[in-house]
């Protein structure tokens, strides 16, 4: 397995979060290259590198940046998504606490490219400890005169998973409830108080300095044709050494788990795995053996790569209990705007609870799938469809366990 450290290269250094250490180890070098390019040329480099958004969706960053107006009488903004609330995901926190200057450098380059003068970092309220490290780094950057052309402001959330969804995030930043907005019919930027705004994940922005400094080809030297580069993959659950370890796309899933994670905890066998946060469909051990860590491979089995935060479950895990746990999360976190989601998340939670309590019947499993179907494709955001996918994936792969629980 090839070691590759694009985003995590300074993580292990002592006091890596300080300007002094970061700078001595290459931070802000890419900024020097910036002058040689026009903003549009920077966007071309990012497009050429095929950088994909690392917040869960994998959308090409270049196409999103291109939507931002190069000429406009309104100010443009950058909103960096550090909401990181998808269960199983804890990578952005590594960046802001171990190498905040990498993120700041990425923000400066991105703002240059999209002609924004102000960037906001929306951070989940629970990350206050890490927010303080990030704020200290921003203060240092101000003192060092690095933020002359662009301001950076941290905006703290206050506990709501849905604020990670990009339009809900902007609503929240506008001082409202975090309710996702209806999607426009055509491709356009996001809007913050009516101004064009780009929303990208912390890790996406933190990958930008490497690409600008080393060129698109250097990034594409890692990963696969369609998923180039690397990701801060992570592991939690039943694994010996949980944590965040950067790897290139296309790495074998089991090799990753065994190499970095030291295998399944207590020498047990793998039973199931959720590849990238609970919103991705569950996989069984057989599938995990064959899969590689990239968007295409996971889509091929009806799941998705998501944030790359894998949740690992050993042979003793009860899959009905696991699904119940996930559905409680969704029930708690639905923003309540759409009836199929607000009501549906409650119903499916109750139905699985009934099966778990041995009060269920075969009809309840069918009912569960039926409600899931009603939740799919009829809502403002993809929260409800994700719940449906998760339910179907559990029943499809572990139906016998659900029937055995009746």
């Amino acid at each position, binding site marked *: 397995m090839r070691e590759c450290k694009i985003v995590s290269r300074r993580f292990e250094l002592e006091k890596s979060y300080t300007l002094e250490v970061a700078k001595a180890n290459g931070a802000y070098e890419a900024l020097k290259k910036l002058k040689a390019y026009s903003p549009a040329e920077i966007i071309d480099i990012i497009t050429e590198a095929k950088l994909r958004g690392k917040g869960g969706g994998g959308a090409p960053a270049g196409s999103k940046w291109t939507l931002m107006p190069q000429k406009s009488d309104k*100010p443009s903004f950058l909103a960096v998504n550090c909401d*990181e*609330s*998808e*269960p*199983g*995901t*804890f990578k952005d*926190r590594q960046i802001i606490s171990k190498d905040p200057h990498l993120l700041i450098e990425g923000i400066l380059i991105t703002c240059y490219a999209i002609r924004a003068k*102000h960037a906001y970092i929306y951070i*989940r*309220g*629970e*990350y*206050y*400890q890490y927010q303080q490290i990030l704020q200290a780094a921003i203060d240092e950057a101000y003192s060092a005169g690095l933020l002359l052309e662009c*301001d950076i*402001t941290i*905006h*703290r*959330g*206050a*506990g*709501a*998973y849905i604020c990670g969804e990009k339009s809900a995030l902007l609503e*929240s*930043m*506008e*001082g*409202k*409830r*975090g309710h996702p907005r209806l999607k426009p019919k055509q491709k356009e930027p996001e809007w*913050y*108080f009516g*101004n064009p705004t780009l929303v990208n994940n912390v890790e996406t922005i933190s990958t930008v300095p490497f690409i600008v400094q080393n060129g698109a080809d250097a990034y594409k030297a890692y990963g696969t044709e369609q998923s180039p580069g690397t990701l801060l993959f*992570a*592991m*939690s*659950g*039943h694994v010996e050494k*949980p*944590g*965040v370890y950067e790897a290139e796309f296309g790495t074998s899933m089991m090799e990753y788990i065994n190499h970095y994670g030291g295998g399944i905890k207590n020498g047990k066998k793998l039973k199931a795995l*959720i590849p990238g946060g*609970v919103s991705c469909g569950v996989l069984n051990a057989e599938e995990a053996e064959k899969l590689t860590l990239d968007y295409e491979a996971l889509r091929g089995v009806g799941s998705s790569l998501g944030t790359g*935060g894998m*949740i690992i*479950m050993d042979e003793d*895990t009860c899959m009905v*209990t*696991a699904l119940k*746990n*996930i559905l*409680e*999360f969704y029930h*708690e*976190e639905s923003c309540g705007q759409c009836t199929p989601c607000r009501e549906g998340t409650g119903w499916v939670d109750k139905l699985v609870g009934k099966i778990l309590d041995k009060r269920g019947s075969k009809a309840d499993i069918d009912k569960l799938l039926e409600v899931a179907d009603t939740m799919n494709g009829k809502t403002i955001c993809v929260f409800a469809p994700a719940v449906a996918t998760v339910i179907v994936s559990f029943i499809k792969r572990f139906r016998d366990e659900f029937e055995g629980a009746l």
Partner: protein
Amino acid sequence: MSFQFSEENLQKIEALKKRYPSPKALTLPCLWMAEYQEGFISLDAIEEISTHTDTPPMEVYRVATFYTMFHLEPQEKINVQVCKTLSCKLCGSDEIEKHLQGKDVNIVHVECLGSCGTAPVMQIEDVTYEDLTPEKVDMILKELK
């Protein structure tokens, strides 16, 4: 009105106004300031925030109730927020919760705290405590007393 922002917070608010395109954006920052200043967000504080953010009090209230981290009533005991989401559950959050029962704290169930790699975890005020064991929980609570 019985709630007033401290001098320090008023200065913060003025400084923040320059950093946003609209005062409405100050709703969450102001709610946080009130939460820290009083330990909860009173209806008087909501009124006060409304004047700084150019937002009707009812709207500020609607926002305050949407986010789970704000308290709308004074808190009597220590709130121990135990993560009960999947990775923590797989790694023994039930045991931690059982251990906490009967102690003089208020147990609050919360969803994933973004510390799944060091599960099980809990949060008290702004601090996350990771890799918990019952013994570790005892030590933490003892130090807080």
